């Protein structure tokens, strides 16, 4: 074997060994420094400084920060976190770097506004974000819709919601539903029907599969709330007529009070408890329901089932 060949073989072997060893060592380092690489730190927190540092390539930096915000929210949401300390600053940086990145306002406000574990529980920051979006994109009706949505859903502030929908309805090419929503807010802010219309509009106006799945999940929850209220009223009336609670829905069916055994939006039959309450069979599959859960039930982090 020539000297040159000997060196080639030795160096190649050494290369493979050192590469493998360094990978293993890195994995070991990751284990002993768990979480160290994912600290909740923004090394540059000033959006203005970042904009300067981008040397004019702020569009790309905004895309990177938006992806970072999505990943941050997604990972925290998956963990069922109740604190989202970096979400607001990440969205502020994203929208300062690119004030026309409307997707960041629309989704960002949706991340910020809902109460944990569904969101960060920061509706005021969500409103500030939506208003900043409107300021920079006054002709985008979806941002007014988003603002009205937050006032309605998270703050139950119907006058402000009506105002946001009204302003949005005046934007050129605005969705005609905005006028209807404005009127509904002004007259029947807290109605179940209003909520159903709101989520139906969200479903129909979005092309994003996650937003549509979220809307369907809420619509299912509203359907359950309505079904449970109706069924419990019926059970109460049955008791008044017969002097006793029904043992099952089958009993009510045989007595002609129901045409069939009632089922929830996922096709499971509702459960009638001995004390006359109505419960869903699998509450974990129906996030956001406010009625029909067993006593002491703690909902898990919501999972959005397919919309179709």
């Amino acid at each position, binding site marked *: 074997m020539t000297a040159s060949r000997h060196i080639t073989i030795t160096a190649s072997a050494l290369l493979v060994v050192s590469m493998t060893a360094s990978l293993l060592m890195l994995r070991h380092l990751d284990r002993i420094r768990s979480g160290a690489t994912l600290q909740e730190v923004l090394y540059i927190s000033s959006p203005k400084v970042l904009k300067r540092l981008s040397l004019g390539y702020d*569009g790309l930096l905004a895309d990177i920060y938006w992806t970072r915000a999505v990943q941050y929210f997604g990972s925290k949401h998956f963990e069922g976190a109740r604190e989202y300390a970096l979400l607001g600053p990440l969205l502020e940086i994203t929208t300062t770097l690119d004030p026309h990145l409307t997707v960041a306002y629309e989704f960002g406000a949706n991340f910020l506004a809902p109460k944990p574990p569904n969101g960060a529980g920061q509706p005021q920051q969500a409103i500030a974000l939506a208003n900043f979006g409107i300021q920079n994109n006054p002709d985008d009706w979806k941002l007014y819709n988003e603002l009205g949505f937050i006032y309605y859903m998270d703050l139950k502030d119907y006058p402000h919601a009506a105002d946001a929908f009204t302003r949005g309805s005046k934007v050129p090419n605005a969705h005609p539903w905005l006028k209807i929503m404005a009127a509904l807010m002004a007259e029947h802010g807290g109605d179940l029907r209003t909520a159903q219309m709101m989520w139906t509009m969200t479903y129909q106006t979005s092309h994003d599969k996650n937003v549509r799945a979220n809307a369907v999940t809420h619509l299912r929850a509203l359907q359950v709330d309505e079904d449970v209220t109706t069924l419990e009223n019926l059970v109460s009336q049955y008791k008044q007529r017969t002097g006793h609670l029904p043992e099952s829905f089958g009993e009510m069916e045989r007595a002609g009070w129901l045409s069939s055994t009632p089922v929830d939006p996922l096709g499971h039959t509702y459960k009638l408890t001995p004390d006359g309450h109505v419960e869903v069979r699998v509450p974990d599959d129906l996030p956001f329901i406010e009625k029909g859960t067993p006593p002491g039930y703690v909902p898990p982090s919501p999972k959005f089932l397919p919309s179709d």
Partner: protein
Amino acid sequence: MSGRIAHIASNTFREAVRDRVLYNLIAFALLMSGAAILVGQISIDIERLVVINLGLTAVSLFGVVIAIFIGIGLVSKEIEKRTLYTVLSRPVRRWEFIVGKFFGLAGTLMVNTFFMALGVFAALFYVSRHFQRADAWVLVALYFIILEFLIITALALLFSSFSSPLLSAVFAFSLFVIGSFAEDLRGFAAMTHGLTRWLATGAAYLVPNFSALNVISSVAHEQPVAGQLILANTAYALLYATMALCGAVLIFERRNLK
């Protein structure tokens, strides 16, 4: 005269190709295909934006790096290898040498940009499945990037005509960074008074204004670019590049090559 300039330009182009400058296209292709596939999975609703923002940013930065690092060596390398003496001993004037070098590198950058533009549009088609009218503005952004290259190439040649390669790179890159802040500089100048104001304003207008040439973010949002801006930017870039090139010619004409 034009034949000699064209000859020097084509040699400069061939030399750049021999130096494997176009290898950056491989890195660019990997970057674009990676981004087009990956972004849809890790972000929300910005696939098209990322392809345009990342694509045009990469075209611009790759080009700036090539313009600076090739540009600074255009003159010094010829002196170092003593090939300059062979060239100048023929009926070639010094200014023809500088102008030829400029067109050679500008041509290299244009060819490079053409192939990168094909990559950007291919990635755009991959994520959108169709082209739309607004995509035509991407061509305007690419045109502005080429104008930017002309200025940087001329500046790199200017510095290369009197300084060492290392210092030329530092000067050219510094001017690129300062030029990106040109509008801020004018804002700062407006805040001062008296003589300082005049000096600061003069300095702010002397550095190249790259921010006017950067429309990447707006074309990514499908915003049109005004025809007046296209004309004004074209005139500005050509004038600035001519100015820097004249400076390079003047210095090189008087340079003692012994």
